């Protein structure tokens, strides 16, 4: 009998093993839901799968009576728009400030304590401030996402850039690089893969801030819908919405991972060797 650490599953077994826990959870849900329905036909807590499917079908295909939109898709579009603008802005700030702090010692001395302090402000605590300053519209939600993740991106990228071996920085100078050229051709390309990894890590917090802002003040969006139907204990909408949000986040994460490996193959050499 081999040691447990030496038993490595093949690719087929691997997929099967990965699916197994999902199937188990699904089965468990179906069984428990059926039991509750049997005990109380009006149970709202764990609606049967069929009921959730009908609700989602209605939200996805029937125009809303008031606005005429297809609710699921308009909610998704509104949320994703906020998310992408927020993530994009935060990435741009992270990249510019991170590079500057990582490359220029003067900028680092002047700004990194500030960034360190700002990154400790709990973003949710200043949400009211954002609502007061930017109103209840789209801007305040986007700003919340930016404030929530930009400081992390700045610090992470500054550390990544500062960790580029001195030998490379000196070498670039002996090849005649100016500070600007060095940032553009040496620091920036080496920061990019890390930026994508940091964005992947930020997806969770970004969704957290998005849903929170939508829960408090919005007219559309995935978070808005969940908190709206909460009043009617509409688990048949809430649970599929949560699953939908999770699926979107998972797909974004997967896409970013693929993008990074395709665009910056040199950064993942160690991985493919393993």
């Amino acid at each position, binding site marked *: 009998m081999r040691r447990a650490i030496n038993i490595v599953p093949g690719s087929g077994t691997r997929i099967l093993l990965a699916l197994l826990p999902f199937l188990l959870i699904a089965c468990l849900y179906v069984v428990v839901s059926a039991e509750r329905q049997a005990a109380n036909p009006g149970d709202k807590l764990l609606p049967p799968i069929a009921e959730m499917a009908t609700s989602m079908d209605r939200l996805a295909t029937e125009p809303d009576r008031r606005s005429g939109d297809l609710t699921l898709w308009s909610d998704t579009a509104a949320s994703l728009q906020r998310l992408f603008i927020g993530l994009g802005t935060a990435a741009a700030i992270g990249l510019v400030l991170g590079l500057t702090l990582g490359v220029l010692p003067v900028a680092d001395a002047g700004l990194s304590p500030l960034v360190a302090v700002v990154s400790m402000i709990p973003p949710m605590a200043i949400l009211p401030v954002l609502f007061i300053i930017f109103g209840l519209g789209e801007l305040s939600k986007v700003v919340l996402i930016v404030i929530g993740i930009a400081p992390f991106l700045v610090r992470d990228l500054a550390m990544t850039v500062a960790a580029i*071996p*001195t*030998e*490379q920085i*000196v*070498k*670039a*100078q*002996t*090849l*005649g*690089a*100016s500070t*600007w*050229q060095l940032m*553009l*051709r*040496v620091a920036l*390309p*080496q920061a990019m893969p890390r930026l994508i990894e940091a964005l992947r890590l930020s997806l969770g917090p970004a969704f957290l801030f998005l849903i929170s802002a939508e829960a408090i003040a919005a007219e559309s969006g995935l978070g808005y819908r969940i908190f709206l139907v909460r009043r009617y204990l509409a688990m048949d909408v809430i649970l599929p919405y949560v699953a939908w949000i999770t699926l979107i986040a998972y797909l974004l994460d997967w896409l970013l991972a693929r993008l990074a490996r395709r665009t*910056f*193959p*040199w*950064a993942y*050499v160690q991985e493919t060797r393993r």
Partner: protein
Amino acid sequence: MSEIRVHNVWMEYGDQIVLENISLDIASGAFVSVVGPSGCGKSTFLRMILGQERPTRGIITLDGAALPGEPGPDRGVVFQRYSVFPHLNVVQNVLIAFEFAESPFTAKLFGAKRRAASEKAEALLQAVGLSEHAWKYPSALSGGQQQRLAIAQALARKPKVLLLDEPFGALDPGTRAQMHALIKPLWRERGMTVIMVTHDLKEAFGLGTRLLAFDRPRIDPQAPERYGARITYDLDLSRDGPVPVLGFSPPIEPSTASQETKRSMSHA
């Protein structure tokens, strides 16, 4: 021309004296090997010529002009590790030197200029024997190939001085011999001054036209940081036969040094 003059140079980090009172002239086109025990300041000496560090006292001149306080294209360098860019492939690693020179804002070349620069880069790769690996990333190269690339890169801007910081220290003996066979003709053809720090005495004697040995002639056991390293041997290797000693800072009378040690021992 690329004559280096080092005049009364001291290097101190706080209380610690690393180099004391180093003075020497390095003739244009010399191949200077620098040897010495670990931590005796030979790499510090190299970094001072490179401009990465500034001497605490004294001046260093290159062709009569004081060295600028930062690295520049007149002094090329090959480090033991990490001196090629991991995000660029082999040809891009050399091409970037021309891009820095000719494209101040975007640091990228296009069209005819790019083709011209690519040809120069490929010629350099040919010279170091890397032509067939032009599209590989450095991570796919062996240690010796990475050092070949680093050399091609360092030669791109035609530096007056080439600084080598234990360039072949991490290579196996066979590859090291190949690198020796590569570097010597490159140095001869280009007429640059080479300063090479090494731990390998055979390499130092085999390649150099001049050998500098750094060591600390005096050590105070109570305060080891009080005395720095000097040049203890300066050998001319350019002629056949017995090696004449060019300069040689006379050991600070061994008697006084040992008396000092004894005195401090008896105090202790």
